[in-house]
């Protein structure tokens, strides 16, 4: 797939969120059936609906498949080192609080090598929107076990099945201090757009976990076709309201989706910092 033949104005007319794409950098590096594209599209649509222009967005990432997203986003984009995106983004956001700052990360990037930066950004409640693609595996390096690989699942470094427990990303983020926590999937595309949109709107640290199929690496290792993986999300997740109504014994194996936590009462970090500076410096910046 090369750049489309239609003139850009025509495309943007039909699909206004295309204005956020660096079409000349496409095709993307993602495998067929990968869910990152769904999350990326949802993000661009959310930005468009919120009326945020390209010049108002910074996108920061670390290393991994999902971290390649900023390269395709026509904004101020920073593809940094493995796991460190929250640190770079914290510096950028503090210095330029007016920029809507979005992070694309994955389960390995955010929870393993970058776990410390992730929880501290959440603790500060700095206004970053973290879109965490949870595909249960290290895709880019060829399929190694990650902190969210399901028990028993196969990875190149768990040839006899995974025997380690998993992080519950939402619980981790809430405990660390995130003030907006949601979970969506690559199957429920429009719901995901809404969750990301609300995450961007939220003033404070937002985490949107996106259950997303790694079709080529995880799928092959665990004998799942990409259709099976998408249907798995359909069958095994349910809206949080419905999940809450389930009796305890029926919750096993079912994953709630939607808005899991929202707290507007805590102050946002950059606002706190700059109001302090204003008081100390008499408004000088």
């Amino acid at each position, binding site marked *: 797939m090369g750049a489309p033949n239609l003139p850009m104005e025509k495309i943007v007319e039909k699909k206004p969120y295309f204005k956020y794409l660096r079409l000349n950098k496409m095709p993307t590096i993602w495998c067929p059936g990968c869910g990152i594209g769904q999350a990326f599209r949802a993000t661009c649509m959310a930005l468009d609906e919120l009326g945020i222009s390209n010049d108002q967005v910074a996108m920061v990432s670390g290393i991994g498949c999902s971290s390649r997203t900023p390269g395709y986003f026509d904004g101020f984009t920073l593809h940094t080192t493995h796991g*460190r995106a929250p640190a*770079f983004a914290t510096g950028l956001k503090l210095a330029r609080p007016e920029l809507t700052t979005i992070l694309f990360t994955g389960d390995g990037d955010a929870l393993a090598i970058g776990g410390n930066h992730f929880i501290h950004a959440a603790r500060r409640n700095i206004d970053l929107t973290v879109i965490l693609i949870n595909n249960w595996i290290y895709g880019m390096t060829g399929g190694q076990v990650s902190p969210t690989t399901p028990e028993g699942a196969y990875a190149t470094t768990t040839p006899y099945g995974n025997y380690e427990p998993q992080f519950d990303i939402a619980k981790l983020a809430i405990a660390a201090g995130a003030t907006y926590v949601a979970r969506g999937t690559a199957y429920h595309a429009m719901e995901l757009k809404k969750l990301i949109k609300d995450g961007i709107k939220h003033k404070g640290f937002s985490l949107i976990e996106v259950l997303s199929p790694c079709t080529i690496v995880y799928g092959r290792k665990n004998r799942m076709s990409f259709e099976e993986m998408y249907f798995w999300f359909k069958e095994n997740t349910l809206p949080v309201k419905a999940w809450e109504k389930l009796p305890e014994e029926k919750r096993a194996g079912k994953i709630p989706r939607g808005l899991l936590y929202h707290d507007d009462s805590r102050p946002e970090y950059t606002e706190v910092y700059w109001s302090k500076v204003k008081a100390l410096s008499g408004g000088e910046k």
Partner: protein
Amino acid sequence: MAKLELKYGNHACAEAAVLAGCRFYAGYPITPSSEIAEKMAELLPKKGGVFIQMEDEIAAMGATVGGSFAGLKAMTATSGPGFSLKQENLGYAFMVEAPCVVVNVQRGGPSTGLPTQVGQQEIMQSLWGTHGDKMIPVFYPGNVQEIMEETIRAFNWAERLRTPVVLLLDEVLGHMRETVDMEQFEEGKVEIWDRKMPKVPPEEYLPYKPEEDGVPAIAPYGTPGYRGHATGLHHDYTGFPTTDPEMCQELIERLINKVKSRQKELERNEAYKLDDAEVAIVAFGTTARAAKTAVDLAREKGIKAGLLRVITIWPSPEETLYELAKSVKAILVPELNMGQYVLEVERCAKGEAPVYRLNRANGKIIYPHEILAKIEEIVKGGK
């Protein structure tokens, strides 16, 4: 008229950074550099700048690059173990050409080493610590007045060349109180260089296209219209990853040459009684202070000794060292490590003079009488 003030080394570094225009500091506590962070925490908010204590050294370096990309002059400071942790993102800063100053107040190593005692064991790490090829300016002042001068010079070159600059101090310098003549640092008297901005309209803007000096004009993030991409991967003029072999080779050569080609302008040394010297000492930082006294002691004994105090450690003063080797009978390199800069001095001397070592890595300084004893030994024809 002289305006004398008694200043603490680490505080002088922080104050000079603010004078140089630093408005972003991200740090992490570590002995013996913490006083720099403490001073910045006090000064920056009042100046409308950003101070943040990060969760670790890696994050402090990362946030510093983030602040730099936002257009602010940015700094972080640390010591040995923290400097090791910073290497990953220091390499990133080099690759994406983020101007910043990284201070390393050296203590005894390796590992946790001697946290409260002096060392000069990161002479090589300051240049070669991160993986991959690299060339960055590394400055090493020798007294508190010079800490201020070199901090400002570090910021100026960081901004002009769009590169990280490492400022080496050591525990003795950082924790030393000395008189500083503040006259040269009065408002309007300090020469400040800022990074260049793109001269082309947004539609022609290529963030990583170098200008004649090898330095690209990258707009601060948030500048309307001047959007761009930065990556630690090899990249093309748009900042987008590439594996094109010609582009990759050009990138790495440019990154190295933009610093190396300015070696003459970057070079700064102090020559002390070298004109008629037969034995030259090459030293830096705290050790150079003892070496200076050793030169005087040797001269009292009739030995024609002299000192070349190197301030710009990297890129090294190759020609100066070669000329020095040709003009003396022997060179002595005392340093608080097991022999690091001596390797560079030997390389530059090209066999024109024998190069002797005096090494120590136990947290104690090298005293003048010890250097004198070594000079006497060399003169007597010992080793």
